[in-house]
């Protein structure tokens, strides 16, 4: 295997793919979104809720390639139980990372295992895969009326 493909499929990604964290629908989600990647048919459904103490809860189900599935798992790890502000930070950082063309130095504090996706940004066709669960999260929280901007104010 070349170094390229190894930088794409970092160990952490493969681990999340094989052992997804926090998968499963969220019972009683206040917002839910189903997203598909029309090019390859990858699908993910994300449900989201905000509890009384201001913490976010997420659940997800889906099928797709290693990148989209691992991304969902990492997203769940980062967002489940996070404050609104932390979720917002992670969301922004991940989207930015995906648009970096692979030249970013992501902040592990904010992105946790998400830093492993840096190599994905070099493959345009895979960026969509990695972003799919995050797009679903964004859409789900908008449906739930959870707005990030307020959270950060």
């Amino acid at each position, binding site marked *: *295997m*070349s170094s390229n*493909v190894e930088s794409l499929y970092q160990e952490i990604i493969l681990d999340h793919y094989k052992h997804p964290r926090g998968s499963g629908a969220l019972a009683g989600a206040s917002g839910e979104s189903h997203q598909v990647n029309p090019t390859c048919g990858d699908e993910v459904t994300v449900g989201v809720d905000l509890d009384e103490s201001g913490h976010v809860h997420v659940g997800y189900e889906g099928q797709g390639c290693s990148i989209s599935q691992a991304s969902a798992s990492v997203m769940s790890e980062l967002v489940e139980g996070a404050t609104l502000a932390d979720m917002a930070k992670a969301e922004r950082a991940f989207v930015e990372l995906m648009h970096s063309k692979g030249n970013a130095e992501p902040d592990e504090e904010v992105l946790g295992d998400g830093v492993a996706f840096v190599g994905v940004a070099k493959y345009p066709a895979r960026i969509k895969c990695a972003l799919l669960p995050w797009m679903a999260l964004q859409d789900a929280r908008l449906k739930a009326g959870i707005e990030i901007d307020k959270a950060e104010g």
Partner: protein
Amino acid sequence: MAARLDVPRIRKDFPILARTVRDDRPLVYLDSAATSQKPTAVLDAERAFYETSNAAVHRGAHQLAEEATDAYEDARSAIAGFVGARSEDIVFTKNATEGLNLAAYAFSNGTDKSRQGHSIDPRFVVGPGDSIVVTEMEHHANLIPWQELCAKTGAELRWIGVDDDGRLRREDFGLIDATTKAVSVVHQSNILGTLNPVEEIMAQARSVGAVGIVDACQSIPHMSVDVVDLGADLVAWSGHKMLGPTGIGLLWGRTEILEAMPPFLTGGSMIETVFMESSTFAPPPQKFEAGVPMVAQAVGLGAAVRYLEDVGMASIADHEHELTGYALAQLSQLPGVRIIGPTDNVDRGSAISFVVDGLHPHDVGQVLDDRGVAVRVGHHCAWPTCRRFAVPATTRLSTYLYNDTTDIDAAVEGIVAAQEFFGVA
């Protein structure tokens, strides 16, 4: 048996095949079902046209316009000859999708005009109670235009199912009945590789008075096809999949059908007389070629057809048949690999879809790409066919005259490497 292909010599005619990809890997191009590569002869023909004769066709009275018109019409004749048709029955479109839409719009336009009291051939008037028949293995280009027609007219969309081997369910042919106004069927599936008995289906369409349409995108580039013999009314296909430039496709129609059909795109060059209030239209094929056409692309496609004829379509078909047999045999030996589509090398083309246990097609494709092997992954614009086989997507190998068994070997090695890398071997 036709003459064997000299693949190394043929490859020299395709400059792109000499390039490398990723870390200096030689390119192994196995994605010709998406689009084919172009030989130098095609690129030269286009360039020569632009450098010597470029002008608007069918309009000018100056020498360049005459030369451009001749070049354009010569290309039409060459293409007509290639598929056993009369020049006048060949319409240039931008791609096969436009041709199939042109067919479907004949019905919605016909229906609309007839409702407003214009006189329209009743074959092109549809409504509730009428049906349109396609198959479950259509490319989106031959499915969505008919869905749209039904959404606009209230007609019912029916489809012939696909069995587990990737063949059409003959018991569904009966769906074509007295209510049927159009039957539109893919000749060779771009996802399964299946070659369908379109002659039989078209005969059935004829017997109930329905307009018969064939999507020949994956057959005409790879085998000798006489469009008239298919027994269809209309046949659509692409230029870019048969060594031609991007931006050009073809629609063949029986003279009588082209004459009876209402026009589709309207504007310059497709008219007879024009008043502010209303217009009359030129005879086919001009009736369907509004605006300045894809002149240089037609010229390039003419050169492509001559190239294919020089190599010989029978030789190409034999070569690809052999390659397909080889690929099917190799893939069947790989544990964990399942072919989606016919596994026997009978009535099938060279597009082979497969899935690998425990691996998503995107990941298989990525490892292949990393090794220089270009294949396509996804639903191949035949999403309902994927659903039929309960797979989210497939990986697809597809060949052409410039491929040989070493390309298949490279793909097979890549699949094994992917299985190892992801630990599913």
